[in-house]
């Protein structure tokens, strides 16, 4: 039950954060732009105001007023940028946690989180994030118990960064491997199931192959991760595995 609540919390956390408008351009695109423009206008106005204030005091006052207004607007935009950065950071953290739950190896987790962050964060604020969050980013990826002491369930074999389970990444089990082996369906088992299901009169959907490959099969924990993998697959993996490709050939590729 504890695990369930924990996972519920993660998903809710992710959804709520995501619904807070991370993808809205106001926070991601316009705010950094507005901030930069206001910064430039403000500094220019101050400079011009000082320069002309000796000869034309009224113009100088006007310039300083403009600088003040621009600075205020810029400050608001700056706050909006940081809000978007913080939201992106929270989402990255949720990603990292959920990837941990599915047993994605560290390298893949790191790559996925980085890609996610780059794509989701304010467009002109990457350097801010990189400056402020490198440790946090590593913590997202490495820390298995960031905000809770509950030990997550670890599944072997899942993928987020490529859409295809790479054989080597499937084998790597995170450091926090549970005592009991978790359920993991290997390719031979999946093929066996497919053949035997067909023989029993239950042909699997063609797209089930891809579902299996993408680990978006309806496994409880992975359904939750599917919420994330949907996003990641849209964001960081432009090429999807064609439905027509067979399980074997895709794996071998």
């Amino acid at each position, binding site marked *: 039950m504890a695990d369930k609540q924990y996972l519920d919390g993660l998903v809710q956390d992710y959804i709520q954060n995501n619904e807070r408008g991370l993808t809205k351009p106001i926070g991601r695109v316009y705010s950094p732009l507005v901030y930069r423009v206001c910064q430039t206008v403000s500094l220019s106005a101050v400079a011009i105001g000082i320069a002309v204030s000796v000869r034309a005091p009224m113009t100088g006052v006007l310039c300083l007023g403009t600088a003040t207004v621009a600075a205020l607007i810029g400050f608001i935009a700056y706050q909006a940028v940081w809000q978007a950065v913080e939201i992106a950071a929270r989402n990255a953290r949720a990603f990292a946690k959920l990837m941990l739950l599915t047993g994605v190896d560290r390298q893949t987790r790191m790559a996925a989180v980085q890609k996610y962050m780059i794509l989701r964060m304010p467009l002109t604020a990457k350097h801010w994030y990189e400056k402020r969050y490198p440790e946090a980013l590593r913590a997202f990826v490495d820390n298995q118990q960031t905000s809770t002491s509950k030990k997550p369930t670890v599944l072997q074999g899942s993928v987020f960064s490529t859409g295809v389970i790479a054989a080597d990444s499937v084998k790597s089990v995170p450091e926090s491997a549970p005592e009991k082996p*978790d359920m993991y369906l290997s390719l031979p088992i999946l093929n066996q199931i497919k053949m035997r299901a067909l023989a029993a009169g*239950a042909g699997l959907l063609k797209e089930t192959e891809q579902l299996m490959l993408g680990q978006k099969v309806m496994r409880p924990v992975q*359904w939750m991760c599917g919420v994330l993998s949907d996003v990641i697959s849209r964001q960081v993996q432009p090429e999807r595995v064609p439905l027509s490709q067979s399980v074997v050939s895709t794996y071998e590729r």
Partner: protein
Amino acid sequence: MKQIKLYTLLPTTDGSFVAVLPFLSDAPPKEAKLLFDGTPHVLFYRADKESYVWDYLNPDAIEPMKKMDKILIFEVDISSQSIRWEYWARVIQTTENPHVTLEQTR
């Protein structure tokens, strides 16, 4: 009653599912059946005095489950990478499943 935490439902061409469960028991299944009341918690009676809960059913699986009357189940032994049992289970639609005390398994 034990809880099956990890399982897989694979959609089939007829709108049903094939369920892949971890290997549960050496004892053969007997008149296996599922009691489904439309909630994400399915009661699974594998044999006499052997019952489980499939917990955390995917929301997308609930509507199809309401229309199913049987489901093909595979029990897979992960360690030996083999299918140990393969059987059909009846899906019995109920209005409300009894509350159960769970004991967690895989």
